[in-house]
């Protein structure tokens, strides 16, 4: 049959018409929509039996008990544990998002060896044997060269068994350089040493039993310190509770406080003294405590017959009107606050912890401790509690000659040297020390970093980066590809906390000595090892006395031995309370007088005389040149941004408000009045410049910040991890600069002068 055009068209037409009349189009339409309902690239989570497992979160030092919802071997959800005594059910956003670190692109999935430039993030996977041999080989070579003291370890904490292993390793190896990252503990430990004579005790505040919390700038509700503990305390507040916040910026804590007192930054110490004066003047102090358990309240005579000024006489100069002049508050406010504080059932004054910067104003801290002493709340329910670290029962370290020699050398960070005899750790000084040292004679030849991300968190981070880049050999123990890991030569990745054992020492600032136990709820997903095991492996590999000092089969064996009797309770209950009760006042103080010293006789001072010893108010200047049109930059803590060693997970970044971060730009908060002077408007692009660095930002006008200040949130501007974390905003640490306290070395700068200009 010849097919002509007409025939073809008819055939085609018939075919189409036939199909249209058939069920085919309907079937296809239906199937297509069913396909869209089951797109293969939209995941369908597998179901299975549900189990809940309890453990302790270690994403920050807050030590919250958590329960983990599991389906088969998958972690589905994390929630706060109601039965855990620290957080009692409360949990911060970081705790909830920590599953995003168990899974996800930020993990270091095996030991790594750097192949590219420092910070470039180029690594190649190596075997554990290879990585550990490389580390032990390097350390061995240094030791053989008599340079064991040039090995340093930076740790996020000096408490708990993993830091204990590092300290032990350095001791057996022969280095005095175990360095804790700066934190609020620095000033409190110093103040506890000066006023109470304890050299290594924890200072905590029993907030949950207090009825009146006077906070000098603590970000109690801004996610710092032990957020779970602070939130759970606040959640149980009722009408009988009062929170007063002293801070130049209306923070989340200030917003929730019954009263917000915007004292000028750096003048909190003067306010504390002013309050002390009103309390003393009106006889509102605790007579029993002052008369029986304190020293240096009144003027006193020393063994040589010299009369010294007492605390009372010193504060008499801090009249409400004078303090009002210093702080910018009203005299009336100061008087009524002092009365309310002293008359409260269980008042407590807190400072230093939970600030996003570790600003260690020794005078201020002593003054705040003195306020607590005045109301007699030391070691009382709802007061300031001083307690020792948990005791570990491990055999003494075996030291050879090299180790003993190495340990006598001065520390690389100058802590404990003649210049700073009463300081324990001074990491903030290390970058400058490294920068000014000659390459050949660098005080740190090898660096171990655990539980810390100093390349990011150290102030003046640009200098810190340059300084770290000089260190010939860096080993990171991080689970995640953080900034410091990117600087490392070798990464020996730790498990995620849901994959391994670890004891959780009492969180800093918390007034009860609770140790928790973090237990594995899932088997390790990647080729990672518990850092405790890794350090034991390295020690074993090094042989000799070092190896002998680590006789354990692994970290778990060590943990069991170190915690002894406590281990059983820990593994059963998840936590133990280390001491039954705070020490009674007659035995609480280890000072020469055996009492609480309002006049800290031991204080190391550059000058002589009572003025230097007593915690009088001294104006602290901030770094940078004063210029017209300048602002003072401060960093602030947001509960929605993790600003510690671990970066903000994507879930938390998702919660950040549009007036804080827009695309890659961070907003800087200034008062509308300041904006007027600088000719800036809401949303303007601007450049902020300090002596440490420069950054482009956007302007956010906020009535809640003191005119003249500019505030940036801490915790953004990461460059490592993954594209879900990096490249968002500015790292405020790159703009800040620490100023060393002349006698203690710790940073005392609360801000930095900056130029803020329209871009």
């Amino acid at each position, binding site marked *: 049959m010849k097919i002509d055009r007409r025939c073809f068209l008819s055939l085609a037409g018939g075919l189409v018409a036939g199909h249209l009349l058939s069920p085919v189009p309907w079937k296809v339409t239906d199937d297509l929509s069913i*396909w869209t309902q089951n797109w293969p690239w939209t995941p369908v989570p597998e179901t299975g039996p549900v189990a809940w497992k309890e453990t302790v979160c270690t994403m920050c030092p807050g030590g919250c008990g958590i329960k983990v919802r599991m389906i088969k071997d998958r972690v589905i959800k994390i929630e706060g544990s109601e039965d855990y005594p620290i957080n009692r059910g409360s949990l911060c956003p970081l705790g909830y998002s920590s599953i995003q670190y168990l899974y996800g692109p930020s993990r270091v999935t095996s030991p790594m060896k750097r192949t590219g430039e420092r910070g470039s993030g180029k690594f190649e996977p190596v075997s554990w044997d290879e990585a550990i041999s490389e580390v032990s080989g390097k350390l061995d070579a240094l030791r053989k060269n008599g340079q064991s003291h040039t090995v340093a370890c930076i740790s996020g904490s000096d408490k708990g068994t993993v830091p204990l292993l590092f300290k032990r390793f350095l001791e057996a190896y022969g280095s005095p350089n175990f360095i804790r990252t700066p934190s609020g503990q620095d000033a409190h430990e110093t103040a506890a040493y000066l006023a109470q004579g304890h050299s290594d005790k924890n200072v905590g505040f029993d907030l949950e039993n207090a009825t009146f919390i006077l906070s000098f700038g603590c970000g109690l509700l801004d996610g710092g310190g032990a957020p779970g503990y602070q939130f759970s305390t606040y959640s149980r507040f009722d009408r009988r509770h009062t929170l007063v916040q002293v801070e130049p910026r209306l923070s989340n804590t200030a917003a929730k406080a019954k009263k917000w007192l915007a004292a000028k930054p750096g003048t909190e110490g003067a306010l504390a003294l002013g309050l002390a004066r009103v309390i003393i003047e009106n006889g509102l102090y605790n007579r029993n405590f002052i008369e029986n358990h304190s020293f240096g309240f009144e003027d006193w005579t020393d063994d040589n017959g010299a009369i010294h000024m007492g605390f009372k006489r010193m504060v008499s100069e801090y009249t409400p009107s004078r303090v009002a002049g210093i702080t910018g508050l009203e005299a009336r406010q100061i008087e009524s606050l002092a009365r309310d504080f002293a008359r409260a059932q269980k008042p407590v004054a807190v400072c230093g912890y939970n600030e996003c910067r570790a600003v260690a104003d020794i005078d201020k801290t002593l003054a705040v401790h003195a306020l607590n002493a005045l109301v007699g709340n030391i070691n009382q329910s709802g007061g300031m509690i001083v307690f020792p670290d948990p005791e570990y029962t491990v055999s003494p370290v075996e030291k050879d000659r090299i180790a003993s020699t190495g340990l006598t050398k001065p520390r690389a960070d100058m802590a404990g040297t003649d210049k700073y005899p009463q300081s324990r750790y001074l990491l903030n000084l290390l970058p400058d020390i490294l920068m000014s040292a000659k390459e050949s004679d660098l005080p740190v030849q090898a660096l171990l970093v655990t539980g810390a991300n100093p390349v990011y968190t150290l102030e003046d981070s640009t200098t810190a980066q340059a300084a770290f880049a000089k260190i010939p050999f860096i080993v990171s123990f991080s689970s995640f590809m953080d900034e410091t890991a990117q600087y490392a030569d070798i990464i020996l990745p730790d498990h995620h906390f849901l994959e391994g054992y670890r004891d959780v020492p009492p969180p800093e600032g918390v007034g009860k000595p609770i140790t928790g136990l973090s237990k594995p709820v899932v088997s390790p997903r990647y080729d990672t090892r518990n850092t405790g095991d890794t350090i034991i492996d390295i020690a074993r590999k090094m042989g000799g006395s070092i190896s002998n000092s680590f006789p354990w089969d692994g970290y778990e064996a060590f943990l069991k031995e170190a915690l002894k009797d406590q281990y059983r309770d820990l593994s059963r209950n998840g936590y133990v309370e280390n001491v039954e009760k705070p020490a009674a006042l007659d035995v609480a103080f280890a000072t020469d007088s055996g009492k609480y010293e309002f006049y800290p006789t031991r204080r190391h001072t550059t000058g002589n005389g009572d003025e230097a010893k007593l915690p009088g108010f001294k104006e602290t200047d901030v770094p940078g040149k004063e210029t017209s049109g300048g602002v003072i930059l401060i960093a602030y803590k947001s509960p929605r941004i993790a600003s510690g060693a671990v970066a903000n997970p994507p879930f938390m970044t998702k919660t950040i408000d549009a007036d804080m971060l827009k695309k890659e730009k961070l907003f800087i908060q200034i008062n509308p009045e300041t904006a007027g002077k600088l000719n800036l408007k809401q949303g303007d692009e601007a450049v902020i410049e300090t002596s440490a660095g420069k950054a482009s930002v956007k302007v956010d006008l906020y009535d809640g910040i003191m005119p003249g200040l500019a505030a940036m949130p801490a915790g953004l501007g990461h460059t490592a991890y993954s594209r879900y974390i990096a490249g968002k905003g500015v790292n405020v640490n790159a703009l800040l600069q620490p100023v060393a306290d002349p006698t203690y070395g710790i940073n005392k700068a609360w801000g930095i002068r900056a130029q803020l200009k329209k871009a």
Partner: protein
Amino acid sequence: MTTPAIPEGVKRCGSRQFLLWLGVAALVVLWGVYAMYRIWFYGLNQTNMNNAYGFALWIWADLAVIALGGGAFFSGFLAYIIGLKNVKNIINFAVILGVVCYTSALLILGLDVGQPLRGWFIFWHANVHSMLTEVAFCLSVYLGVLIIEFIPVLLENPKIQKVRFFHHLSHNMHEIMAVFAATGVFLSFFHQGSLGGVPGVLYGRPFAFREGLFVWPWTFFLFTWSAAAVGPLFTASMCRLTEAITRKKLVKDDVYHLLAKISGWMLLTYIIAKSIDTIYWATVTAPSMGFALMDFYSNNPLYNIWILVAEIAVCGFLPALILITRKGRENKKLLFGAAILAIIGLLINRWVMVLQVMAAPLMPFQEEWFMYSPAWTEVATSILPIAYGIILISLAYRYLPLFPQEKELNPGN
């Protein structure tokens, strides 16, 4: 000898020139098709819409083309129901314009939904309370009617007429066209109204919300009325544009004058009703929800009070008054000037009823207006119907006897 494809007795340009003209339009269509591909393949993230602007340029374009396509139903109503014979001289053109507008509307809707392959759920799982369901049903059925109305025109092509079956089909269809026209009018009254109901029922959006009659908010009636008023003006204007492009008179002036007169009165009554509605809304409805009139207009450069003045006075009363006066509508410049103003007024109305509704902040702590500018993909796909319309109308004009008066007006071809 083969039958020419071009209708007998009319002159058309050379095929090369025609192809060039089509080619230019086709390029624009291709651009739009590329945008369609981006949108269907990658999803609506290719647009500038967001959670505040769930409705944006496309919904406006939909409301606009349907309102302008209203010329088809209202001319049909005038020609077949009222029996104004003169209107029949433009009805073919109105129908084809209607086909262009309504197919475009459906295409844009197909782009606008996040799951186009499930679009038919609107029929299968219909929620009878939803204005959108009403729109979808009436719209689809009416498009069917329009196509049925279009078929006899299509069959008039000389080549098709040669087939006996089609010849008779066309003849018989002409006979029953009034029935379809009536059906179309009925459907149109409803879907034009439902489109008005779409914003009008949003009682969570005080800018859009209107009280009304039974289940129908006042916007239901205002949308139908305005489409009936302006639709024929759009038909006339497009017809005039075709005349200008082809440099030929295609429709006698009295047709234009008749449509202008009817539209003028429709527009005047509409704009009076719209004014009353606006006053009631501004003084009673909105204040009951805590809004003063100026809350909706202040504080924004795009949506300030001038947009209301433009819609009601400049593009409402002014053209209406021109068109109802004989002098006005018999002056060509005034007539089409007024028509263009009226069309702009209609476009503004549909724009504010969609986009300003989305833009106005509702929560007092949210001071900022939501701003939006369309992405190129949205623009390209919104322009696509224009180019597609040009192609379809050009083809129809070339091969179909659209204008019964053309031969008479252009003798000697």
